[in-house]
């Protein structure tokens, strides 16, 4: 307009431009000189269970000049949902003032990182606008629910030297009867086997009990898409994660050394360890575990069994497919004691399919296939826990895993 005024030498054009010039000048003149915002973030709980409420409190302090219009927006991780309050606020922030807002989020299992708070600063007419990112980091871990299992009976061939609760296939002090040996001076009188001693005039015999030690346990969580993902986006993976968490917790509570391998689009290995710290490590890994597909890890043939100590216990949590039989048999042949916890994929898939004759017929066929597969696995000397996910996992474990099966109790298997 000014240009038109100058070109045409007519003052009216410049008169027309004057309100705009005043508007722009007023905006530029009042634009904030220095934007210096600082923020702190506080989470009511950094460890949470799925879909529980977490209160996020954010305080933004203005260390710079007066800010007439600030749009603060906390960048909430995508899978978290706002339950109460809002993460975006429009306000005036005078120099030296601070502003605190809170909101409540919840979300599914996962690890969530809160990074920055976005601030869009305008002058009072929004002629100038600047966007700044204020660093206010925070972390939230939503762990899978951990069911308390009373006892998981495992019998690996090899145990560690420390006392624990796993029968060690060696005589010594313990609870379970192991054998009878000749009495040695120092044996407690209550260990003397009087019946055996009565049959011999010169010798006495003592009962020997099976030593109980801790064991090495490797938990393998199968996160392959082809075994976990079903039609209509349904997935068994969350059940597998819950089972892995419960097993890890129970085995660590028994004093064992437990490691975790997540076998999905890539391998995620948590080194074996003991106790509560290891429990935390495993829960962190499980919080981040996601199912994934990969050409390399599409079947269990590339499972790096050498990560686990020889003759140790491997717990595979997997819905299983036909192709998994051979790798499992190989694992068993290598000397590992294998326990397969298998969420029942057939019952799971049938539970949401229409109840018609076709689905019923197909269900019978795949159920037979699965039963056959599990039989083959069991015949290879592998313990199988077929878990119908409609049943609570702890009840199934209590019923089927609180005592080792009879064939496994025999020494030397």
């Amino acid at each position, binding site marked *: 307009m000014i240009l*038109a005024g100058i070109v045409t030498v007519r*003052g009216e054009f410049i008169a027309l431009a004057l309100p705009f010039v005043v508007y722009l000048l*007023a905006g530029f003149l009042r634009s904030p000189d220095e934007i210096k915002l600082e923020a702190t973030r506080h989470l009511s709980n950094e460890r949470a269970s799925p879909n529980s409420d977490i209160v996020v409190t954010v305080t933004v302090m203005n260390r710079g000049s007066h800010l007439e219009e600030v749009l603060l927006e906390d960048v909430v991780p995508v899978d978290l949902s706002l339950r109460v309050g*809002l993460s975006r606020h429009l306000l005036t922030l005078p120099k030296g003032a601070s502003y605190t807002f809170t909101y409540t989020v919840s979300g599914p299992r996962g690890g969530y990182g809160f990074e920055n708070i976005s601030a869009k600063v305008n002058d*009072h007419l929004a002629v100038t606008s600047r966007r700044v990112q204020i660093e206010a980091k925070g972390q939230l871990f939503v762990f899978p629910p951990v069911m308390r299992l009373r006892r998981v009976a495992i019998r690996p061939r090899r145990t560690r030297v420390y006392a624990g609760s796993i029968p060690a296939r060696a005589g010594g002090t313990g609870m379970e009867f192991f054998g009878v040996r000749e009495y040695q001076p120092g044996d407690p009188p209550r260990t003397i086997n009087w019946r055996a001693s009565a049959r011999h005039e010169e010798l006495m015999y003592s009962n020997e009990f099976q030593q109980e030690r801790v064991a090495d346990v490797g938990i393998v969580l199968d996160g392959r898409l082809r075994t976990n993902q079903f039609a209509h986006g349904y997935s068994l993976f969350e059940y597998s994660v819950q089972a892995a968490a419960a097993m890890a917790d129970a085995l660590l509570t028994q004093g064992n050394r437990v490691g975790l391998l997540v076998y999905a689009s890539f391998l995620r290995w948590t080194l074996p360890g003991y106790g509560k710290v290891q429990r935390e490590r495993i829960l962190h890994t499980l919080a981040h575990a996601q199912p994934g597909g990969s050409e390399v890890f599409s079947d269990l043939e590339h499972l790096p069994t050498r990560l686990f100590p020889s003759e140790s216990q491997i717990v595979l949590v997997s819905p299983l497919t036909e192709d998994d039989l051979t790798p499992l048999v190989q694992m068993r042949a290598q000397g590992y004691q294998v326990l397969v916890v298998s969420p029942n994929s057939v019952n799971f898939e049938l539970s949401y399919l229409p109840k018609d004759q076709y689905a019923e017929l197909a269900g019978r066929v795949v159920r037979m296939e699965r039963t056959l597969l599990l039989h083959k696995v069991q015949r290879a000397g592998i313990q199988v826990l077929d878990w119908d996910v409609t049943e609570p996992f702890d009840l199934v474990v209590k019923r089927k895993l609180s005592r080792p099966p009879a064939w496994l109790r025999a020494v030397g298997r």
Partner: protein
Amino acid sequence: MLQPPSLAKHPAGGEDAAESRIIMTIVAMVLSILLGTGSLVIGYSQADFTDPVRWFVLLGLGWLLAHWQKWYWFSPIALFVTIIAAGYGVWREFSTVWMILGALGGLLGWDLSDFARRLSYAAPTDDVQGMQRRHLERAGIVAVLGLGLALLSVYIHITRLAFEVAVGLILLAALGLTRLVMGLRKY
């Protein structure tokens, strides 16, 4: 995985609640749009140039409809159209005052439409009333100042100095003062 800051309207409170909180701005915006398009209508009508008049009426109605429908992209286009229309009117030597009022109405309509959009991002607990009051005061002052200067430039003729030169000098002075003030405020 982080989601980018989205500028969708807050879910809480509902649209009606959000609109009722910014009623002052909405009223001012409607009046500004009416002022802008109405002035253009009057200015063009006075010059017996009636063909575009119905388009200005449609522009005003369309602008209001666009705001109601949250078509925020319409507002800058409407501002551009009013400026072009006012400039054309000045070029055709229609009443300058109506043209200035038309452009000023367009400017205020655009400003308040954008402000209403920004206010829609506010949370229910934010001080929207205070922000509205302050913004309307400042926009009003700027409008009065701009209009006053524009009218002065129309009615006051300096015989010894060409008006264009005077305006150029004023702009230069304003620019210089702005730079000076901004420089001083850094210390």
